[in-house]
């Protein structure tokens, strides 16, 4: 190692995930668990917010908004109840990192939730977990009971005088409920319709009360910021893109899985070093979707990019939920776009016409191209429909469906033209089953 080089990264968020009984309170306490909560409770809430601000932590749910700043938007004068919501509705295609934390280290999730609730002066915190994660739900529920029995949750936590109930709430199958305002509507007992902003949740969120909503991984970072300090956190990665990060690697790689590295690992290293390279040695890389179905696709020449918020944005894509889907030469990009368009058409809540009608329409167009019945004009039409959804809807689902479309059409035009020119449902090159 050369002088001044950063020390090698050691896992932080997932450090306990492989240990026996990592989900139990006993092992969590033995590893120093709930000391961060104790340290936070010794400070004023505003001082906790300042620490998180100083760390540079940005939201891990997709938007990358600075967490401390979000917390500071909560009213200084508490005239109504404040609520904290831990968004565990992980549903972005390709994302499976929060599930790992909830199943393997549920007390870390609970401790992060509690510190967040204390910082914004809430006495109720909700963990909204997607309904399909039944196993994670049972693990978290058992952990909450352990924590409550030992006085980490409930009345007068650790003798501080601060009360906080943590309510674990199961969703029931709806991608849209991962969108913050839809989640709140759902939690109030309605269908998951997003709301117009403003008012922002910090002014009028759950039950029209001041609310902060953070992602599971975001809150899981908070206990470490308390115990190791904001400087430690800020020194990992690079400025404004700091801290440990969970990457979800899937698709045509040898070793798919969740990998924790310093924020900003190069996409090439994520695939080659952590993922073990391509699944089939004779099928080279064709494309990578770095942040879930909602982000622009990269071609094989673009993988020397740091996997962080700002570097991917500069490439016209996004880090999103760090759901990195790898496609090899057997993949048809028309099919990939079709699968993603089908997803958004299925998940559009139907509230805004551009999204409700547009997502269906895009799916139909890509479907006919893929089936060999498309026309060259369809490519223009697709771009046109996408442009009429983008920016025209209440929530970002419409943008997520429409935004990536041009990247598929420009970078992989040959795949589309092949289907159209040859009137064929057979992809270019001929796709073969991956196993």
């Amino acid at each position, binding site marked *: 190692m050369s002088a001044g080089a950063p020390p090698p990264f050691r896992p932080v968020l997932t450090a306990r995930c492989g240990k026996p009984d990592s989900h139990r309170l006993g092992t969590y306490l033995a590893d120093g668990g709930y000391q961060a909560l104790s340290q936070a409770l010794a400070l004023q809430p505003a001082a906790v917010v300042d620490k998180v601000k100083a760390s540079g932590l940005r939201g891990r749910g997709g938007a990358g908004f600075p967490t401390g700043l979000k917390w500071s938007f909560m009213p200084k004068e508490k005239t109504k109840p404040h609520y904290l919501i831990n968004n565990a509705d992980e549903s972005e295609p390709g994302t499976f990192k929060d599930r790992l934390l909830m199943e393997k280290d549920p007390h870390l999730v609970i401790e992060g939730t509690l510190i967040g609730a204390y910082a914004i002066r809430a006495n109720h915190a909700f963990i909204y977990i997607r*309904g399909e994660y039944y196993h994670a739900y049972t693990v978290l529920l058992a952990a909450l009971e352990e924590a409550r029995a030992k006085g980490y949750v409930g009345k007068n936590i650790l003798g501080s005088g601060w009360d906080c109930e943590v309510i674990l*709430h199961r969703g029931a199958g*709806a991608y849209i409920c991962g969108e913050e305002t839809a989640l709140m509507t759902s939690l109030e007992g309605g269908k998951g319709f997003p709301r117009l902003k403003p008012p922002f949740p910090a002014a009028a969120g759950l039950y029209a009360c001041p609310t902060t909503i953070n992602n599971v991984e975001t809150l899981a970072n908070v206990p470490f910021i308390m115990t190791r300090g904001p400087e430690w956190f800020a020194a990992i990665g690079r400025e404004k893109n700091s801290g440990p990060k969970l990457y979800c690697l899937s698709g045509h790689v040898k070793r798919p899985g969740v990998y924790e590295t310093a924020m900003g690992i190069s996409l090439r290293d994520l695939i080659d070093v952590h993922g073990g390279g391509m699944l089939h040695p004779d099928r080279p890389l064709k494309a990578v979707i770095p942040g879930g179905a909602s982000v622009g696709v990269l071609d094989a020449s673009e993988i020397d990019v740091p996997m962080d918020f700002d570097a991917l944005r500069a490439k016209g894509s996004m880090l999103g939920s760090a759901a990195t*889907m790898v496609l090899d030469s057997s993949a048809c990009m028309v099919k*990939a776009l079709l699968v993603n368009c089908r997803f958004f058409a299925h998940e559009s809540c139907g509230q805004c016409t551009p999204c409700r009608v547009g997502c269906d329409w895009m799916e139909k167009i890509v479907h006919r191209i893929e089936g060999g019945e498309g026309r060259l004009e369809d490519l223009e039409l697709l771009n046109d429909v996408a442009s009429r959804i983008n920016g025209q809807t209440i929530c970002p689902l419409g943008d997520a469906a429409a935004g990536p479309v041009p990247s598929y059409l420009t970078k992989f035009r040959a795949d589309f033209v092949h289907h159209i020119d040859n009137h064929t449902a057979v992809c270019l090159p001929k796709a073969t089953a991956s196993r």
Partner: protein
Amino acid sequence: MNFAANVLEEIDRIVARYPRATSAVLPVLHVVQREHGFVPPEAKAWVAARLDMPPAKVEEVLSFYTMFHRAPVGRKHLQVCRSLSCNLRGEEEITATICRKIGIDPGGKTADGKFSLVQVECLGSCGTAPMMQVNDDYHESLTPRRVEELLEEWSR
């Protein structure tokens, strides 16, 4: 609607957790479905009365969320993920294997009520694709052969 006393107590505990009763609509419907295997038509009015909300609001919820069944599903309800990571790793072959083996199409149910099959969107198991959820459990890193074995086991 008839529920055992302990189920009614469970519902009371759920409702009491929330600052407002209507927030309990999803968890209460989960309990109803667990007890009956689906959400029977008469549950709508019962849940509405219990949570003091209009039946139309309960209907909105029931028709919006994909996990609530309005009619009985198979004893093994197979949900195969069709989103991109699973698609890249062979979900189409998995679904085709199931259809061939139990003789139904996606959306269908076997005549003996043993199996039903649907295709669903991402279930957050992309690192172990292809996968399916069967009732509450995830079955991951599937191969056509593994799926055949599971179906044979469940057919016994």
